[in-house]
């Protein structure tokens, strides 16, 4: 199946982009519409350690916290909820674990929808458990086979949608980010990552649509989030935040491939690159930011992504008890109330006010927030669509556009940068600008440079002949 490359923006103006509304809403089972004029809260619970030992205890645990979530929705008067399971290894590796947990959750979703009219959708995010180093690698390895089987298992159990965080190019990215090697970051995320997605995603779409399950989306959790996580807070000294922001822009060009292959959204939340992809494609997106996901991620973006999100996610929380209840209940309350505020703004016709306040609360706080502010995300989207047919070029120009945005804000004295951040930015721009515009040439150069040097990197994993 061919990919539908985006060479123009679906949104005609950045000002049209707002939370809760997408150009192409998604309709899922059990009464949930996404991007159709209101924000849907999302809750993700990581099963408590030890429950995975036996299938029975694992399924019971899923039932328990799913029921807690649904009961809390009734208690607090919420109208919709998305419950997501990010697979633990056992769930993807063992299709019985995948099917049985999904089935148990779907049964509960149906029950609450039928009995109360509560809109409930279940998302299962399959783990990308593939290993570059095993025989067969990313494409033919045993883990790849199990991964696709898990998609089938979940779709056949009736989940509303499926997602994944593919890891293509991670071996290059990990190596490059620790060394501040921006060319490697571009190659790992922008080229290897895109190539891998172009292989994985048509298969996912084919498998799950047979069952009426929505193929939702993919994020660069293993790449741009790794960079952001390593970059850490303002006082950390691992990765320049300017470079982390450019990695995020590159991820925008990469994660777009899912939509090009037929993913419909809501795009997977971990990827902070979603504002860029929503601007390009008009599909709804899940988002997270510290104000609603501090249980899993704390970063320098407190509210910003809420400005354009259609689903508000807590990212993930370990199941345990807090004073307010179980973490499943506590974080359902957090995302549900954040969504309620957004929905009131939508009803009152004040959505753009709220959007802009959410944006400005973080826009000049850090380079990553700056480039993801919806007006700047739109600029990056335009750079991507201008070179839309070429995954390498669009990733390269996304990074350059992000760099320009940061420099402009710095020169306008809207954002302060350390010398290291500024030097890293200037050096990265110099490197990106000097790269060839010929994608094949760049790929060959990179294979020559990284094959044999970066552990685990094998061009065959990306469908390229070996050195």
């Amino acid at each position, binding site marked *: 199946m061919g990919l539908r490359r985006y060479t123009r923006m679906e949104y005609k103006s*950045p*000002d049209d982009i707002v939370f809760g509304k997408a150009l192409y809403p998604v309709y899922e089972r059990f009464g949930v519409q996404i991007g159709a004029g209101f924000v849907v809260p999302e809750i993700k619970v*990581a*099963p*408590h*350690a*030890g*429950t*995975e030992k036996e299938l029975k205890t694992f399924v019971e645990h899923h039932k328990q916290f799913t029921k807690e979530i649904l009961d809390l929705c009734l208690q607090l008067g919420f109208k919709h909820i998305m419950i997501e399971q990010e697979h*633990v*290894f*056992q769930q993807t*590796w063992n299709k019985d674990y995948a099917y049985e947990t999904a089935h148990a959750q779907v049964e509960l979703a149906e029950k609450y929808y039928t009995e109360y009219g509560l809109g409930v959708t279940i998302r299962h995010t399959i783990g990308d*458990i593939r*290993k570059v*180093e095993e025989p067969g690698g990313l494409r033919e390895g045993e883990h790849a086979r199990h991964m696709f089987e898990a998609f089938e298992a979940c779709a056949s159990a009736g989940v509303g949608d499926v997602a994944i965080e593919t*890891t293509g190019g991670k071996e290059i990215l*990990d190596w490059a980010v*620790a*060394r*501040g*090697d921006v060319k490697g970051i571009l190659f790992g995320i922008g080229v290897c990552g895109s190539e891998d997605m172009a292989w994985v995603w048509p298969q996912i779409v084919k498998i799950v649509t047979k069952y009426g399950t929505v193929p939702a989306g993919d994020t660069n959790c*293993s790449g741009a989030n*790794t960079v952001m*996580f*390593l970059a850490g807070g*303002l*006082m950390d*000294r*691992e*990765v*320049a935040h300017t470079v982390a922001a450019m990695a995020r822009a590159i991820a925008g060009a990469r994660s777009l491939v899912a939509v090009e292959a037929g993913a419909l959204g809501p795009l997977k939340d971990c990827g902070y690159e979603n504002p860029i992809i929503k601007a390009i494609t008009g599909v709804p997106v899940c988002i997270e930011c510290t104000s609603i996901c501090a249980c899993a991620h704390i970063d320098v973006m407190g509210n910003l992504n809420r400005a354009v999100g259609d689903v508000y996610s807590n990212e993930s929380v*370990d199941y345990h008890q807090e004073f307010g209840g179980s973490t499943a209940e506590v974080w359902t309350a957090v995302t549900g109330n954040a969504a309620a505020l957004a929905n009131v703004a939508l009803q009152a016709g*004040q959505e*753009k*006010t709220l959007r*802009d*306040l959410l*944006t*400005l*609360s973080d826009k*000049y*706080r*850090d380079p990553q927030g700056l480039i993801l*502010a919806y*007006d700047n995300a739109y600029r990056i989207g335009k750079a991507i669509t201008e070179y839309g047919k070429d995954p390498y070029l669009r990733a390269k120009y996304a990074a350059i556009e992000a760099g320009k945005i940061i420099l402009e804000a710095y020169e*306008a004295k*809207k*954002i*302060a*940068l*350390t*010398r*290291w*951040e500024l030097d890293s930015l200037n050096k990265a721009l110099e490197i990106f600008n000097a790269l060839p515009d010929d994608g094949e040439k760049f790929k060959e150069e990179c294979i020559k440079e990284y094959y044999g040097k970066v552990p685990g990197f094998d061009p065959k994993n990306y469908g390229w002949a070996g050195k």
Partner: protein
Amino acid sequence: MREVGWAMVEGILAGMKPSVKEERIDFGKIHTRWNVVEEEKKLGLKPEDLVKDLMPTAEPFKSIAEAVFKGDATKVESLVNEAIKKIPAKELVDKALAPGMQAVTKLYEDGIYYLPQVMLAADAMQAGINVLEKATGGKLEKKGKVVMHVAEGDIHDLGKNLAKVFLIADGWEVVDLGRDVPVDEVVKAVEEHKPVMVTGTALMTTTMTAFPKIAQKLVEKGLNIPFVCGGGAVNEDFVQQFPLGIIGKKAHQAPKYAEAAAKKISWEEIRRRWHEIAPV
């Protein structure tokens, strides 16, 4: 309320383009980029001057150490290739490669250098070590062994790989078992290699459950060495629930823990005093 709201919208939207209204917001009163403030205090400092005492002054050690310090692997390789013709390998490690690396690590720990500088220096040092190992036909003397792994079912190995670099740079031999490593394989490696400590990393709550199992089996076999555990899901509460467990928060703590383990400081004491032994 509505009027106020729309006035704000007007201002903000115009500000996005940008506008006077956006300029009315004093962002400095809302957030501070403390890294920028902190950097001001260090302006004018020359990193080389701060570690002058650590660096050798005699040649060829000086040039080699400086090349490591600058992360120039090609230069290190060529200088060491030349030097090994006249100087014993151990001397080149002790007087050139190690001091250059230690200088970089110190600047990193003092908050002056950044991770990429450490990694590039480590790569440069490793280039020198490779030359020496080839020349001597065997392994150079190391401070001791550390066994490292990523928990079974987990493929996230960046943290392990960073810690590994810090350990190698500090002169430790690392037995890297890779990622997705079964419990028994870790135990077997510890029995076989007799390391001063073992490390484990895990991103997920359901994979970190391998750690107590490993610890239990090590204890049963009388292998009471520190088991430093880190990674996204791992926290101090968790590692204190099983014997041997010690929290690993940052990659650069690894050599400090190894030093403590090599001095036979018990895992209980390391656990109790980790803030002091291996501060983050």
